[in-house]
């Protein structure tokens, strides 16, 4: 229970932080300390277990299917890291209290800091690799937000994004690595993974898994060649640098290597990858640190170098090296955190971090200077300080490394060289800042000692440097042992924690480093001159350029592919269909099915020839729009004749009515459009289009041919058998529409209604200017309503209503039905609009078409829902035959009500659509008075 508590408390604290921020910096600092204090108290009882090499574990199920559990593990290694995180965290909280200005967003700062702390604790305490990965990526995110805390600073934003990209990207590699491990081992639980070292290392996927995991570790721990993000992360407030970028987060990669040491280490691949990376990082970091004028830059590169050192130690693969690595983790955290804090104080007090300006601070802030110098000495590896002991161990291990032949000299050489640099930059830190003459152009002058409490964290850490340096066994012995044994997952080799091991080769190397380092520092001008011959690489600029180039490139690619051309999109769609259909169809070939071809009669063939010619002509002559429209009408007419010819009277009627309404619609549109379509597609593209169209046409022909000649049975026998007894109608198509598949029809009229409502909505407030002349340049005729047409149109209305009543009533038994009847009524009304004009007709129609649509749909729904009353499903129809005097026997069917709904919806939708377009015409600006009034009233109502 205590472990999840330790991890979760900081997150809870983060939620509360903004509240405490109201109470000022002290209040929030105190409140923010609570999680760590409770955490430390919670861990304390477990010490006894851990000291004996025991493990504390807690686990809660989360997503068992994924192998993800909310499980935690406390052993020596995690304890060591947890202590570093919490204790240094506490010091940072105190330090930040004075570092931040009162006007800054301290609530956000402490909240993020606590989030980060919780995530970090999560990494080290997780017992499930997936869980650990979650916290891992969370540290990337929170560090991103912390680095960019001063969002107004461009470099802060860039540094943050770079850090996120590198560490977040590494996290993704780690994710893959962990998944592979989980795949090999069959579990993500640490206990299982650590116990399966042999299995993993012998698995064929081991090299990939290892590479991926190391990518995660190296990016996080700023190993070469991913080290570049760390110095740029120094744009963060100094408490963040001290905490994240020296003591904790960058150690997460180290922690990962330590954590998975039993599972992954000990192979040749591990050795080469880890130790060479470490070596390179060690050297490059140390070298660059020497030449940084920025205090934090120096420290950052030094950190890179020390991280390389630790990595190198892990890479060596010997148990003793691993112990040294763990030990150096502790030491580096202590001295580097204190150095960062000191640097922060100097920055705070002088207003700059440029060592070329900062000189002779000894005179102004001796207390701080003393602390900083001790810490820097530790960094340089001065005896009696903690840095010395682990560095000695490092030198010793470097000598032990058994590389073949002459390569055996490489590690000690590099170690010494790095030592020289370390001494040189440490010396620079001490001499250049606190001595070396007088300050130059400090923004704040004279500098003062910082507030008392700001120094306390530094003092504590420096004290720790001394304590560990002088009494290593006493101070860190037990925890180091516990951590080392947990790292190795087995017996810990003999090692001696002593201030000095007598005169040996490592000591000699230390001396060489000291001598060389001091010499180098004394000759710094030459080295600087040498270094300046090389152009400094600005990784931030490179990264920015990378991002913006990527972005531009992506934009360019997108713009080229997604170029907003419907012609292209449509071509792709058609081509896709041809592509997927071509394989099965080519295997089929031109096959005529077993039914063979039936004889053709020549009138039908002529009709078909007319249809084909007119269809092709529509395409070929489409540029003359009116002409094409007439041709299209012929095609529509021939299609409906075709339906009649092939036994579908209902379809013939429907197709015909729809075709005419469509033509009217297109006419209405054509009024506003150019009469001609220009040629703008290049000939090559037209050829391509013809080929695509031809392929589509050919494909359809082949499919149709194959389909039509195959024997076939379908479910339709049921419809034919049940139409009369079950559906009460002899027109099977109609019974299917209103009964068997009435739900389709409901959807269909809904589509129609929605389309009309959408059209109405779309054309509201649309103003169009029609051309004043026709395509020949003639001014349009003044005669809007020819007298002959008017005279005939009016009697047509009742007549057409009569016919539609007839078509409607017989629909259930004979060709016809609500839809066709509706279209006839609609067409008759359209004729009124055509003959008599908009306002005249509108004045005579008292209903709103919206309501007709709604009523139609409602009728259909009510007809369907009526069956609920009798316990039947929606749309269950019923019918009966009634005998009346005079009238005789006639049928009453509930489906008729449904069909009435269809009828009304069709009328409403068709007319609403056409009238909406007609209303665009400037001649019809004055609609009927009632409509106009309703609009006005409603708009007033809406504006309130």
């Amino acid at each position, binding site marked *: 229970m205590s472990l999840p508590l330790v991890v979760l408390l900081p997150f809870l604290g983060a939620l509360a932080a903004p509240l405490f921020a109201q109470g000022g910096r002290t209040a929030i600092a105190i409140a923010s300390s609570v999680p760590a204090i409770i955490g430390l108290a919670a861990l304390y009882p477990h010490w006894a277990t851990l000291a004996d090499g025991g493990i504390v574990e807690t686990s809660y199920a989360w997503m068992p299917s994924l192998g993800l559990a909310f499980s935690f593990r406390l052993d020596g290694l995690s304890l060591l890291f947890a202590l570093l995180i919490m204790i240094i965290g506490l010091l940072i909280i105190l330090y930040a209290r004075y570092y931040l200005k009162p006007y800054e967003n301290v609530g956000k700062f402490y909240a993020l800091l606590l989030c980060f702390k919780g995530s970090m604790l999560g990494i080290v305490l997780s017992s499930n690799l997936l869980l650990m990965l979650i916290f891992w990526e969370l540290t990337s995110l929170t560090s991103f937000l912390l680095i960019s805390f001063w969002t107004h600073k461009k470099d802060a934003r860039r540094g943050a994004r770079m850090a996120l990209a590198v560490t977040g990207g590494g996290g993704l590699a780690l994710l893959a690595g962990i998944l592979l491990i989980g795949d090999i081992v069959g579990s993500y639980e640490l206990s299982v993974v650590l116990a399966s070292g042999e299995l993993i290392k012998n698995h064929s996927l081991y090299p990939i898994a290892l590479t991926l995991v190391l990518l995660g570790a190296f990016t996080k721990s700023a190993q070469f060649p991913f080290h570049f993000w760390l110095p740029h992360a120094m744009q963060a407030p100094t408490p963040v640098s001290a905490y994240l970028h020296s003591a904790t987060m960058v150690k997460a990669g180290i922690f990962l290597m330590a954590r998975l040491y039993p599972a992954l280490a000990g192979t040749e691949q591990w050795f080469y990858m880890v130790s060479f990376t470490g070596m390179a990082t060690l050297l490059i970091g140390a070298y660059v640190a020497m030449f940084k004028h920025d205090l934090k830059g120096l420290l950052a590169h030094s950190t890179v170098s020390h991280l390389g050192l630790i990595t190198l130690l892990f890479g060596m693969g010997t148990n003793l090296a691993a112990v040294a690595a763990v030990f150096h983790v502790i030491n580096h955290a202590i001295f580097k955190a204190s150095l960062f804090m000191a640097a922060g104080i100097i920055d705070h007090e002088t207003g700059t971090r440029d060592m070329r300006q900062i000189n002779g601070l000894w005179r102004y802030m001796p207390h701080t200077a003393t602390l900083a110098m001790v810490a820097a000495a530790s960094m340089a590896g001065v005896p009696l300080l903690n840095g010395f002991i682990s560095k000695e161990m490092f030198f010793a291990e470097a000598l032990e490394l058994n590389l073949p032949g002459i390569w055996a000299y490489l590690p000690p050489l590099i170690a010494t060289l790095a030592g020289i640099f370390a001494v040189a930059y440490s010396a620079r830190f001490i001499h250049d800042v606190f001595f070396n003459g007088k300050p130059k152009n400090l923004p704040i002058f004279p500098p003062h000692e910082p507030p008392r409490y700001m120094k306390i964290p530094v003092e504590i850490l420096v004290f720790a440097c001394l304590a560990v340096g002088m009494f290593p066994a006493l101070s860190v012995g037990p925890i180091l042992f516990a951590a080392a044994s947990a790292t190795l997952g087995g017996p810990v080799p003999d090692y001696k924690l002593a201030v000095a091991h007598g005169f040996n080769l490592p000591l000699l190397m230390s001396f060489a480093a000291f001598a060389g380092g001091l010499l180098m520092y004394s000759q710094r001008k030459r080295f600087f001159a040498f270094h300046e011959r090389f152009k400094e690489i600005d990784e931030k600029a490179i990264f920015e350029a990378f991002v913006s180039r990527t972005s531009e490139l992506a934009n360019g690619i997108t713009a080229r592919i997604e170029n907003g051309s419907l012609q292209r999109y449509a071509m792709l769609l058609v081509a896709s269909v041809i592509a997927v259909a071509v394989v099965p169809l080519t295997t089929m070939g031109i096959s005529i099915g077993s039914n063979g071809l039936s004889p053709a009669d020549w009138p039908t063939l002529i009709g078909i020839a007319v249809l084909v010619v007119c269809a092709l002509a529509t395409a070929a002559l489409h540029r003359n729009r009116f002409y094409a429209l007439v041709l299209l009408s012929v095609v529509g007419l021939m299609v409906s004749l075709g339906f009649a010819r092939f036994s579908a009277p209902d379809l013939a009627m429907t197709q015909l009515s729809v075709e005419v309404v469509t033509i009217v619609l297109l006419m209405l549109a054509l009024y506003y459009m150019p009469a001609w379509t220009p040629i703008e597609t290049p000939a090559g593209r037209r050829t391509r289009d013809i080929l695509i169209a031809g392929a589509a046409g050919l494909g359809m022909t082949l499919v149709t041919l194959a389909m039509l000649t195959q024997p076939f049975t379908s479910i339709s026998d049921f419809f034919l058998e049940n139409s009369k007894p079950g559906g009460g109608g002899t027109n099977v198509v109609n019974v299917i529409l209103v009964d068997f598949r009435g739900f389709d029809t409901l959807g269909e009229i809904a589509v129609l209604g929605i389309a009309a409502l959408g059209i109405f909505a779309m054309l509201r407030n649309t103003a169009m200017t029609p051309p004043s002349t026709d395509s020949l340049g003639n001014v349009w005729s003044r*005669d809007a309503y*020819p*007298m*002959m047409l*008017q*005279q*005939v149109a*009016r*009697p047509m*209305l*009742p*007549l057409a*209503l*009569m*016919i539609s*009543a*007839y078509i409607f*009533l017989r629909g259930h038994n004979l060709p016809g039905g609500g839809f066709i009847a509706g279209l006839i009524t609609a067409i008759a009304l359209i004729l*009124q609009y055509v003959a008599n004009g908009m306002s005249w007709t509108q*004045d*005579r*129609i*008292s209903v709103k078409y919206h309501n007709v649509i709604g009523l139609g749909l409602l009728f259909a729904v009510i007809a369907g829902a009526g069956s609920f009353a009798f316990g039947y499903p929606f749309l269950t129809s019923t019918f009966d035959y009634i005998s009346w005097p*005079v*009238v*005789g026997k*006639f049928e009453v069917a509930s489906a008729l009500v449904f069909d009435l709904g269809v009828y009304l919806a069709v009328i409403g939708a068709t007319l609403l659509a056409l009238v909406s377009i007609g209303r665009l015409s400037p001649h019809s600006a004055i609609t009927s008075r009632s409509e106009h009034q309703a609009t006005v009233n409603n708009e007033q109502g809406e504006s309130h």
Partner: protein
Amino acid sequence: MLDRLTFPQPYLSLLLFIVWQFLSNGVSGASIVMGLILAWLIPQITRGFWPERRAFVNAWKLPGYIGIVLLDIVVASVSVAKLILGGREPKSIFVSYPLELEHPLAIAILASTISLTPGTVSADVSDDNKLLLIHALDADNADEVISSIRERYERRLKEMFQ
């Protein structure tokens, strides 16, 4: 309110009733009932479109008129067919026919009659309903066209509409 229950356009209702009998392929009990219902209902629905009073006065003359027209159609069709198949260039003429009828419906019926009978098409009516533009496919002169129409159709229509 009571007029809501009547037949606002008796001629129309009658016409609709007859049409319904045609649609029903003959007269039966059901077709009469349904025909009555529709002959009442549809004029009620469309009454907004018929604000004018009834137009016909002497409707019983209509069948005779129709008979004459049908006869003319048959007779003239043959001559037009001859013309078309014969290969002789037709002697076309546009004729402006001065109308004596005034009622728009009457004019429309006349114009329709002219169009239906072979050899002539009424191409336009002037805005003031005073002139009718007729295109005759094959006629010697305008007066011949005018007088035959006047005599054969317009006179009868005037009797019906006045």
